[in-house]
């Protein structure tokens, strides 16, 4: 009998093309997602070398980072550099014959929302993209991670990636989540415990009752931020929730193929006694709605807490916290709920799915956002937008005072017109609170959609459980 394997071990072994004595391995890639920012130099490299895309039918291109999210975007993109980059993707997608969802296609959206939505992402696959949040797709029990542009070119040319194997880490969330606590709070709480380098060198498998209880949307939120904990990838073993989500999607297997796939997918779990190099266990009941106060995703506290002081830390973190408090304009000891905000951003590959928009609507239904607050909802895809409109969610958000936008990465990284001004403070459902991330001098507090909705109503960081 062979040694027990983790889910990661199983997916790795199934995709191993070759392995050298020193462990350097060639891994086969099932899906390659491409967006406009990290691909032009890769396609240029192919052209210069006279190479083709090895498997265009496994390559999916979507513009998302640069696209404006205002309703007039089809009239043209004002920023010349953005336009050139979008035009380059359009040309490359057509010249090389890959699957493509252009800006005027209703299926366009953030690449990590489009992939699962269209059934490109399936259990047991290897999925890569020139984008660190590729970790999102791990929610399906696929090995998914971000790569650099040189690696994008490598995958385009060979459909493989040169890799060394990571170690296995297990993050178990036991028990049931309390009311008002969501997938976002789980993933932020984990990063608060591990730190942003705690997962470096590992692939994380999330498990436990609280993970099993999550919808696919919630699982994608959890895996999305595995990269913020430094892990190469995060994954969750597929189960009935996964199969139910996948079934019937445009590129999911059909008929006899479905049966065959299911046989395979049901083997995708970590064997009992499989070895994990590191284990973290958190009780779901100990997780509270979480917010960030600093400029690193590890700067996480429950909303009931106070802004920490540099003296609460040791080593290099002391100076980092001093710098963060100054950048964020916060005073040590102040209550997190006393932090006033100017802007609310709902969206991104972390929280731009239908369930996220419903969560916001549940909080703001029949209410108005605080006067003077600029609040926007940016659906993760054109199909999420359409569904929210059909369900009446969009109207609730519009009635409450939110701007209702078209799909794109928007203010998560502000490569498009959606940006913070210097000193502006934002309650954001995205994934990074780095200095300048949402615009030069902008201040970001990360949180769940429900918490961002609560902040929109009161104008300050707010415990959604108190509303």
């Amino acid at each position, binding site marked *: 009998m062979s040694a027990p394997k983790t889910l990661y071990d199983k997916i790795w072994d199934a995709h191993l093309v070759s392995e050298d004595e020193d462990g350097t391995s060639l891994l086969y890639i099932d899906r390659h997602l491409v967006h406009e920012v990290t691909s032009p130099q890769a396609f240029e490299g192919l052209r210069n070398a006279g190479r083709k895309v090895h498997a265009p039918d496994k390559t999916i291109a979507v513009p998302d980072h640069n696209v404006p999210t205002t309703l007039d975007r089809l009239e043209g993109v004002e920023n010349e550099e953005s336009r050139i980059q979008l035009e380059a993707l359009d040309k490359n997608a057509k010249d090389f014959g890959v699957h493509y969802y252009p800006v005027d296609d209703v299926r366009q959206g953030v690449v990590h929302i489009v992939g699962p939505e269209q059934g490109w992402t399936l259990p047991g696959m290897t999925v890569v993209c020139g984008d660190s949040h590729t970790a999102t797709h791990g929610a399906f029990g696929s090995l998914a991670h971000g790569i650099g542009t040189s690696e994008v070119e490598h995958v385009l040319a060979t459909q493989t990636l040169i890799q060394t194997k990571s170690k296995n880490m297990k993050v178990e969330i036991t028990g049931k989540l309390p009311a008002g606590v969501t997938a976002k709070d789980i993933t932020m709480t984990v990063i608060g415990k591990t730190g942003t*380098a705690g997962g470096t060198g590992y692939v994380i498998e999330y498990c436990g009752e609280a993970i099993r209880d999550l919808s696919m949307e919630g699982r994608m939120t959890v895996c999305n931020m595995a990269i913020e904990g430094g892990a190469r990838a995060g994954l969750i073993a597929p189960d009935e929730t996964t199969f139910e989500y996948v079934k019937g999607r445009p590129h999911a297997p059909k008929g006899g193929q479905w049966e065959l796939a299911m046989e395979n997918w049901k083997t995708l779990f970590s064997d009992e006694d499989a070895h994990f190099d590191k284990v973290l266990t958190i009780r779901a009941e100990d997780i509270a709605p979480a917010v960030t106060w600093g400029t690193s995703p590890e700067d996480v506290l429950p909303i009931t807490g106070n802004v920490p002081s540099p003296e609460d830390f040791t080593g290099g973190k002391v100076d980092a916290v001093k710098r963060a408090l100054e950048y964020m304009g916060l005073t040590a000891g102040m209550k997190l709920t006393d932090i006033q905000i100017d802007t609310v951003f709902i969206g991104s590959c972390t929280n731009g799915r239908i369930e996220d928009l419903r969560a916001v609507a549940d909080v703001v239904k029949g209410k108005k956002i605080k006067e003077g607050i600029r609040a926007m909802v940016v659906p993760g895809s054109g199909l999420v937008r359409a569904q929210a409109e059909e369900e009446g969610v969009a109207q609730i958000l519009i009635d409450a005072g939110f701007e209702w936008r078209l799909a794109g990465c928007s203010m998560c990284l502000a*490569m498009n017109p959606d940006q913070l001004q210097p000193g502006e403070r934002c309650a954001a459902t995205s994934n990074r609170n780095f200095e300048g991330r949402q615009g030069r001098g902008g201040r970001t507090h990360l949180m769940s959609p429900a918490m961002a909705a609560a902040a929109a109503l009161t104008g300050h960081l707010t415990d959604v459980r108190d509303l």
Partner: protein
Amino acid sequence: MEKFAKLSGVAAPMPLINIDTDMIIPKLFLKTIKRSGLGKNLFDEMRYDDNGDEISDFVLNKPAYRNAQILVAGDNFGCGSSREHAPWALLDFGIRVVISTSFADIFFNNCFKNGILPIVLPQEDVDKLMDDAGRGANAVVTVDLENQVITGPDGGTIEFTVDAFKKHCLLNGLDDIGLTMQKSDAIDAFEEEYSAATPWV
């Protein structure tokens, strides 16, 4: 890719931990469709004020470090976004070596694809080199990849480890796409067997 074998140069200290790729090259410079020309915007928001003037106390703006070729950095350098624009910007500025206690995974890999050597050392060695780097332009540090050794300005040496395959590629400036294409028979064979077993993929 430009080869990397041995380099003697000025080392600049950046003790801040968790320096992310948004800091290394902010998003507005990701709109390029080229790899070159990003050096002037390296660490843009730390290096220039709102008017675009240099911030004089930022390390790479100080006369001693304007030609630095080595960075000695705090923990977890290069975390965040996968943007290869970060190593492109470092390279374009002239940085060929980054030394830290730890690097984020994607950034670490991206460096090797661009002729930059990232070196992981224990805290005490990084502290020592950080002190050395603090001594300015006189503090020339030598990094010898072939022998995997760093020589400090006082003649002291520190050994480092590096993945054998990555070392081979750096020393010889190899294009790893070309190397992988030499295995195209193995890839084709894998594909045939794999698609028979998993026709839905």
